[in-house]
C-alpha cells in the first residue's frame, strides 16, 4: 500500500514539475529569443513578462474551437493527444535525482526503474510520430499533409542514429536502465576526467544531440512546423487548446530529451569531482541531487533555445542527406570503435 502511495505521489509530482518547466520554457524561449535579437520581448504581462505563458494559456482556452467540416473528426482530435501524452509518459523512466530517505523508507527519485530504460523512451517517442501524421492527415488541408509527411519522414529517419548512439552506450555500460547508467557515472576515469558519458562516447554524444534536435522538431530541423513558414505545417488547421497541446507537447518533449541527455552523457546527478553523497545526509542528498540534475537539464534547455536562434533552417534534402548519409555511417563507425576499445581493454 505504501509503495502505491509513494508511486502515485511521485507521478503527480513529476507531472506537475514537467508542466511547470514546460510553461517556464515558453517564457524563457520568448525572452531569450528577444534578447538575442536585440529587443526586449514580452514585458507587459507581469514583471519581466513572467505571466505571459499564463496569458497565452487563458487566451487559448477561451478561443472558439473550430473543427473543419470536412476534417476527419477522430483523427483530428487524436492528433494532439497522441503527440503530447507520450511526451509526458516518457519521463517515467528518467531519473531526476538519487535516492532520498524519508521516514525510514528509501525512495529513488525516478518514477519507475524498469530494466529496459531508454528502449521505453524510444518506443514512446515513436508514438509522437503518429500524433503528427494523424494531425496532418485529419486536417484535410494540403499544407497539413505535406507538413505531416515531412515531419514523419524526418522523425523516423533520425530515430536510427538515435538508436545507434544508444547502442554504443549499452556496450559501454552494459545496461539499458537509466538509473544504473547514472550510478555508473561516478568517480573519474583516466585519472582526471569525470566518468561521464560524454568523455567515454564523444562521437556518440554529438550523434545523439543532433538526432535529438531532429526528433524534437527544433531548429535547425524545424521544417514540419514552420515549413512554408507561410502556413504552419501540420498544425495549420488547429486553433484554441488543441494548438496549445501541440505547442506544449513540443516543450515537454524538450524536457524529456534534455533529461535523457543529462542522464546518459552528463553524469546525471553527480558533481564532477566531489562525491557529495558521502558528505550530506540522506534527505539533503536527495534534494541536492535533484538540484544538480535540474541545473544540468536547464543548461540543455537553454542550449535548445540558443541554437534555435543561431541557426537557419535546413532544407529538406539536406535534412534527409544528413540523417541517412551522414549520421548513420557515423553511428555504425562509433559502434565499431566502441566495440573494438572494449574488446582491447577488457
Amino acid at each position, binding site marked *: 500500500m505504501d509503495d502505491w502511495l509513494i508511486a502515485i505521489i511521485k507521478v503527480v509530482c513529476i507531472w506537475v514539475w514537467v508542466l511547470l518547466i514546460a510553461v517556464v520554457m515558453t517564457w524563457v524561449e520568448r525572452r531569450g529569443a528577444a534578447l538575442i535579437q536585440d529587443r*526586449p520581448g514580452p514585458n507587459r504581462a507581469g514583471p519581466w513578462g513572467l505571466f505571459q505563458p499564463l496569458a497565452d494559456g487563458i487566451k487559448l482556452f477561451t478561443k472558439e474551437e473550430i473543427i473543419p467540416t470536412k476534417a476527419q473528426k477522430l483523427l483530428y482530435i487524436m492528433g494532439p493527444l497522441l503527440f503530447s501524452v507520450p511526451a509526458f509518459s516518457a519521463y517515467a523512466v528518467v531519473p531526476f535525482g538519487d535516492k532520498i530517505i524519508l521516514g525510514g523508507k528509501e525512495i529513488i527519485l525516478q518514477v519507475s526503474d524498469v530494466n529496459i530504460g531508454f528502449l521505453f523512451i524510444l518506443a514512446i517517442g515513436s508514438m509522437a510520430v503518429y500524433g503528427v501524421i494523424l494531425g496532418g492527415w485529419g486536417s484535410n488541408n494540403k499544407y497539413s499533409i505535406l507538413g505531416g509527411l515531412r515531419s514523419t519522414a524526418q522523425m523516423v529517419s533520425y530515430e536510427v542514429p538515435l538508436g545507434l548512439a544508444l547502442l554504443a552506450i549499452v556496450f559501454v555500460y552494459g545496461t539499458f536502465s537509466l538509473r544504473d547508467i547514472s550510478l555508473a557515472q561516478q568517480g573519474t576515469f583516466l585519472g582526471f576526467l569525470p566518468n561521464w558519458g560524454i568523455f567515454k562516447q564523444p562521437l556518440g554524444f554529438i550523434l545523439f544531440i543532433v538526432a535529438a534536435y531532429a526528433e524534437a522538431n527544433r531548429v535547425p530541423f524545424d521544417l514540419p512546423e514552420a515549413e512554408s513558414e507561410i502556413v504552419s505545417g501540420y498544425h495549420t488547421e488547429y486553433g484554441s487548446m488543441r494548438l496549445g497541446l501541440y505547442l506544449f507537447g513540443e516543450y515537454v518533449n524538450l524536457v524529456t530529451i534534455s533529461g535523457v541527455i543529462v542522464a546518459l552523457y552528463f553524469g546525471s546527478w553527480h558533481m564532477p569531482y566531489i562525491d557529495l553523497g558521502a558528505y550530506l545526509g540522506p534527505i539533503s542528498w536527495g534534494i541536492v541531487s535533484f538540484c544538480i540534475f535540474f541545473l544540468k537539464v536547464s543548461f540543455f534547455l537553454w542550449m535548445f533555445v540558443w541554437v534555435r536562434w543561431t541557426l537557419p533552417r535546413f532544407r529538406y534534402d539536406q535534412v534527409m542527406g544528413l540523417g541517412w548519409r551522414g549520421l548513420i555511417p557515423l553511428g555504425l563507425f562509433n559502434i565499431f570503435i566502441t566495440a573494438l576499445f572494449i574488446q582491447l581493454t577488457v
Partner: protein
Amino acid sequence: MAIEAYNGGGWIATKLEWLINWGRKRSPWPLPFGTACCGIEMMCALAAGYDMARFGAERPSFSPRQADVLIQAGTINLKLAPVFKKIYDQMAEPRCVISMGACASSGGVFRTYATLQGIDKLVPVDIYIPGCPPRPEALLQALLMFIEKTEKSQPITHKKYSDLLVGT
C-alpha cells in the same frame, strides 16, 4: 438582486471576465496580411526596432485559425478580395481587424475599377490607421487601442448572456 440585474453579473462573473479579458489582451497573436508597402512598416513594427512582442504579439501566425488580430496592411484588389474574406471567415472568435494604411481603409489614392475601396466593404473593421504608410508607432498605438477595447469587453456579463446568470 437589483444591482446584478443592472450590470449583468455578480462578483464571480465579473472577476472571471476580468481574468479572461486579461488573458486575451496580453496575448494578441497577429495575422500579418501584408500585401503592399504598409507590409514593410508592419514588419518594422514586428522587428527589433519597435518590438510588438512586448505586448505579447510574439507569434505572428499565418494560419487564420490560430490568430486573433488580422492586420490588413496594404491594398486589396478585387482579385484578392474573396481570398481575404475567406481568411477572415476562417478566423476563430474573438477576432479583430486592424486596417492599416490608406489603401486598406478606403482604397487610398487608387480610385480605380480594380481596387477594393476599403476593406470595410467586406469585413467589420475595428481600428483604422490612416497613413501612407503609417509609422510603426501608429500600428503599436492601434494595438494598444485593441488592448483597451478588450479590457472593456464583456464576454460573460454582456446583456445577451446576463439572463443566464441570475443568482451568481
